[in-house]
């Protein structure tokens, strides 16, 4: 299967019905994308497919052909969202954080608090109660 992964063209050989989540984690060694539930409820495996956020646990690898996929690793390690999540303690245990950041990444630059709440509604966090995550996303607004 040929697709673009974090900005580079790749050709990955895996079963077409394998979950994109497993292909990313096991064939591509990109373990930043996490599994929390395996049924699209928790959002820990959120990645961008052609610019839209998706749960990688629900996507069969066959659908990756020709797409552009961005994972948390594609953001490098100095993206304003990452720095603000660190500064505002938007991450506690950190397991939901990559997915949370990918969902926050596609929010509009002028997103209101209500837009942020709606935009992150598909990402579960059990540690923070979300308030610190809002503070991080608001702090990062307009810095990208």
């Amino acid at each position, binding site marked *: 299967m040929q697709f673009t992964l974090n900005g580079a063209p790749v050709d990955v050989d895996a079963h077409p019905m394998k979950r994109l989540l497993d292909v990313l*984690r*096991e064939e591509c060694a*990109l*373990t*930043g*994308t*996490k*599994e*929390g*539930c*395996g*049924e699209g*409820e*928790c959002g*820990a495996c959120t990645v961008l497919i052609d610019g839209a956020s998706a749960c990688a646990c629900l996507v069969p690898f066959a659908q990756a052909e020709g797409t552009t996929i961005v*994972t*948390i*690793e594609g*953001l*490098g*390690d100095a993206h304003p*969202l*990452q*720095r603000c*999540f*660190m*500064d*505002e*303690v*938007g*991450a*506690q*245990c*950190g*397991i*939901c*954080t*990559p997915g949370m*950041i990918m969902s926050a990444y596609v929010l509009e630059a002028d997103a209101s608090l209500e837009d*942020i*709440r*709606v935009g*992150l*509604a*598909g*990402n*579960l*966090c*059990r*540690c*923070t*109660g*979300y*308030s*610190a995550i809002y503070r991080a996303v608001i702090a990062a607004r307009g810095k990208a």
Partner: protein
Amino acid sequence: MTSVGKSVSRKDGIGNDTGRTRYADDIVLPGMLYGRTVRSTIPHGTVRGIRFGFDTAGFTIVDHRDIPGRNIVALIDDDQPFLVERAVNHVAEPILLLAHEDREKLLAAKVEIDYDVAEPLYDPERSTQSFKHITILKGDVDDALARADVIVEGTYRTGHQEHVYIETNGVIAVPEDGGVTVYGSLQCPFYAYKALKSLFGPDAKVRVVQTETGGGFGGKEEYPSMIAGHAALLALKSGRPVKVVYDRVEDMVATTKRHPSIVTHRTGLTRDGRLVAMDVDVILDGGAYSTLSAVVLSRGCIHAAGPYRCDHIRINGQAMMTNTPPNGAFRGFGAPQTEFAVEVHMERIAEALGMDSVTLREINALEPGDRTATGQLLRDDASARQVLDEAVHRSDFRRKRDAYRGTNKGIGLALFYHGAGFTGAGEERLKSKARLDLTDSGVRILVASTEIGQGTRTMHAQIVADALGIPYESVDVAPPDTALVADSGPTVASRTCMVVGKILERCAMEMKQTLDGMSPAEYFRTKGPLSVVMEHVPPDWIRWNDDTYQGDAYPTYSWGCDVVEVEMDLDTYEVRPSHVTVVQEFGRPIHPALARGQIEGGTVQGLGYALLERVVMKDGAMANATLTNYTIPTTLDTPELDIVMLENHYDGGPFGAKGLGELPMDGPAPAVVNAIRHLGLDLRELPAIPETLLACNSL
């Protein structure tokens, strides 16, 4: 240059935010096999036979006969086996272990188990097997009840709660150095160590290393010992590393939950609202094995009279056996259940007396100089009145309570407290140790206390840095590895800051004396390595009697008051929280942003417990074991939280700090239910889902 009291950068760095942090399931080792647990499908009976419906070539298969030592998960009472021998006592009990290098083949392997089925018992009130019975007596309750002007009675019920750490349980066991090392997602490395020593025998070489852990909340306190044992058995039999990671369904069906409770109050009062007698019965559903039920019950009973002054108290508690998966540690550890009951009961007392419920609490709230149910004299750091006054004032409680009457809005309040550290003589028995080493650039902390998101590494480093008078950046924290660190005890019971932090503070002070004005680097260069190990010393005034349950149950308490505002959909009976005011006093925040995170996160877990989280048990097993059907709060279920942190220093804690981790869990549920009572529904149980509300009587 001080760091305590400042929100310094977390020691974990940016790894959590870049995806670089490696959790158990992210680790792949050469030659690694995947492990799987074959579990019982019946709640009670005996195993008659096991049949393999697959070609066993290439599989590693383990049953109870492969256990070299004791087939017991060593914890408190020796009753829970690692693997079923004959008797099955709950659904999802581990019977057999399989490992294979191909995960698809492993999952496809069919194992059929034949059983002789016995009658299961699900009702803790009908159970005749008690894991623990606790009685707390103060004064003469029967006499005081006979003389009371008014008596108010009631029974309050709470259900299971599932932890839903977003990282499911997982470990990797590696045969090495003639023994076994287990790397895993866990809170208590030395609990797993002790369980493995028992499993393999006292001479076995065992090592446990915590991997980065994606949430715990008590759910990774005791159960990881079971998983560690399973993975280690497979690893030693196959001679290869074995990874056991549960999927969400297995994690929800098989692992521990918060104990369901039934609490009955019979309370005597004077006509003007003074509590004169409290008679409380507590029943916890322990599940099939005792695990931690005895100590959960203990904390539950000690908190059962609430933060109130009363001269005549009798608390009777029992944890009962049922044929359901064992319940275990969950943030709050029995106190959320009993404080729910007493706080809803206080609301009903106010209703019965025709009295304002804030006034009732003002009259009876514990103050310095008062004695608790166990006879503990409260010191100057008791803050019930301060948190109550601040919450009532800040939330504009009394005005809103009048203004909302007759609308679909309600407002409710709960006053609560939480003892910090192990109960009673627990800390004295633990004799926790901490170790501090000099390095060529600063110092290194070596403790078994785990980072599970709450900020252990950061907060400990702040304490050490300031006690030594060196920069925060020059303090390093060793990974919790039983071969390396001092046994600072389990990461539970709101003790990691107050108890372990205090030992580290003393280590740092001792080291500072030895350095005698030199910087750590200078001393290391000129005089060589230096290591300080110290043991926990309880305050000298602590007295506790385990037989009578009298004395200082905890060295100190943290205090909280929550006000929850709700709106109810009058057609669907759906209740949504619209605003929450949270006032908490926990000594002093070492790291204000982390402390705020504990309060916000714990409060939202409490709101989920109150309004959303319902474990449906069917035939002894969780029937809704998915995140689709067991719902925790999302962003859209979470209202604005107004957090106030009050300070009242405790001199037995580092820099005046008390425990905080569990306190925020105690208040939201009763505050929500009291808000629903304000809407006119006689609700006395959790969770407050529409089906339950529809069946409630009107007030």
